[in-house]
């Protein structure tokens, strides 16, 4: 299972590297990324192949380093698992990578989990663990995983990792925190660790999600301070619309 988890993380980081190095495909790339994340154990092979396909230079103690064939650059990752519950925060090193944007832009979002399938339906309700906002700054690509995982199950816990990639402006980093419970990624968060300008826009491209189900809830069923959509109109427009409608009816 070490390799499986490693596959998860590596595929994820490889995904980061790919997206970070490209300029396009917000939805597709992110969707792919989340697909990988949401895949359950049976898809670990796919995750591994995804890692390979990514051609990232990520290497670790458990996966053979794949060759870097593109601009995707090295990744480093750390992970830890809570022995018993999902409430443990990954011990990411507190070294500060200067990340003014990351700390201000990143607000934890809680979303309801997808009801079916392994599709990338975002994340679960807020977990008790707060993802660390700091990122490992070790330059050595390495992954350390806890060993004794239960048979064919990932250990519940919160994992954080930092991916780096080369941009025209230099090496950039993305921090990722995953919460895994019962073999599923229940929460993932990104830290945008990059600086301003072009790199930031690349990272902003990655910092997007996509959900292909829209369920919605009845407004009457939840407490809201306000509702936002297209403006409710108060005056002339609605009056005119009513006139048009009544004219349309009378013509039938």
């Amino acid at each position, binding site marked *: 299972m070490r390799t499986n988890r490693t596959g998860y993380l590596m595929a994820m980081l490889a995904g980061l590297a790919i997206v970070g190095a490209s300029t396009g495909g917000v939805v597709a790339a992110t969707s792919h990324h989340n697909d990988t994340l949401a895949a359950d154990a049976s898809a670990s092979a796919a995750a591994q192949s995804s890692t390979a396909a990514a051609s990232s230079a990520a290497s670790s103690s458990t996966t053979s380093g794949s060759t870097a064939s593109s601009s995707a650059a090295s990744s480093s990752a750390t992970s830890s698992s809570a022995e018993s519950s999902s409430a443990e925060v990954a011990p990411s090193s507190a070294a500060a990578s200067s990340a003014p944007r990351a700390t201000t832009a990143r607000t934890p979002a809680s979303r309801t989990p997808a009801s079916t399938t392994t599709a990338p339906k975002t994340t679960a309700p807020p977990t008790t663990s707060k993802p660390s906002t700091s990122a490992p700054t070790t330059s050595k690509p390495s992954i350390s995983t806890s060993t004794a995982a239960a048979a064919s199950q990932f250990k519940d816990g919160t994992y954080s990792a930092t991916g780096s990639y080369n941009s025209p402006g230099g090496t950039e980093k993305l921090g990722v925190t995953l919460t895994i419970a019962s073999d599923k990624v229940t929460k993932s968060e990104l830290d945008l660790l990059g600086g301003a300008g072009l790199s930031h826009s690349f990272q902003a491209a990655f910092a997007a999600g996509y959900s292909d*189900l*829209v*369920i919605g809830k009845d407004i009457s069923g939840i407490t809201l301070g306000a509702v936002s959509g297209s*403006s*409710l*109109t108060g005056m*002339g427009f609605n009056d005119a619309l009513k006139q048009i409608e009544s004219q349309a009816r009378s013509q039938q």
Partner: protein
Amino acid sequence: MSPSREVFDAIGTSWSIETATALPTPLLVTIHQRIEQFDRTYSRFRPDSLVSAFAATGGSCEFPPDAIALLHLYRELYELTGGRVSPLVGSALEHLGYDAGYSLRRRPGSATVPRWTDVLTVEGTTVSARKPVLLDFGAAGKGYLIDLLALILREHDVGDYLVDGSGDLARRGQDVFRVGLEHPADPTKVIGVANVTSGALCGSAGNRRAWGDGLHHIVDPRTGEPATEILATWVVAESALIADGLATALFFAEPRDLAARFSFSYVRMPATGGVEYSTNFDGELFT
């Protein structure tokens, strides 16, 4: 905040201003005067506005000082969206029936939207047009007015406030305020909730101000027709001017291109289905 709420209609929509204590009458007068001044400048729905006069005469026109921020944002969004957020869509909207008389009847043929550089010159608050053009500030105007009203409230030290222009809002508060994101296909449903403490949230969708046959108020200058790729957008940003402008811009541009210039979070619904969101979006999505 146990709010005192002031509700009124202005610039074609419903407004609500909530404050901890009731606003004194002189302040209410100031607020309504400010709205009137804004409307008399920027509305293309009233014949006595500056925009209407400018449309009739062309030439050179001096806008009030508050126009600087608005014109600047339009120029920026125009550049960032390749001309698809434009103040020059006024005539196209009229052509589609969204005119001062609310005819809501499409006229024959198609409308074209001129390019900014072909017709318009902006220097400070001086706007010049080589030919008469009907400016439309529908993309960001309401958001800007929300900011201007919020500014008045801050200047008068009213404490926390909510300025809600029918779902486009600016707020100052201590607690989290939950704003439902209206389902563009079903106004009785919300697709999610945005958490706003202090800041602005604006949404844009074609569903409400629509008048049939796919006609709505967000026009794509490339085609002169209503935008079709995106159903609805919501943006949370520091100011309602920016949030409102970006909500329209997200109909025409990729978020990453806008994120290169603005700090914001967003949710949007493409016509192809699903929901896109930025991972810094604070709230829930019911998916």
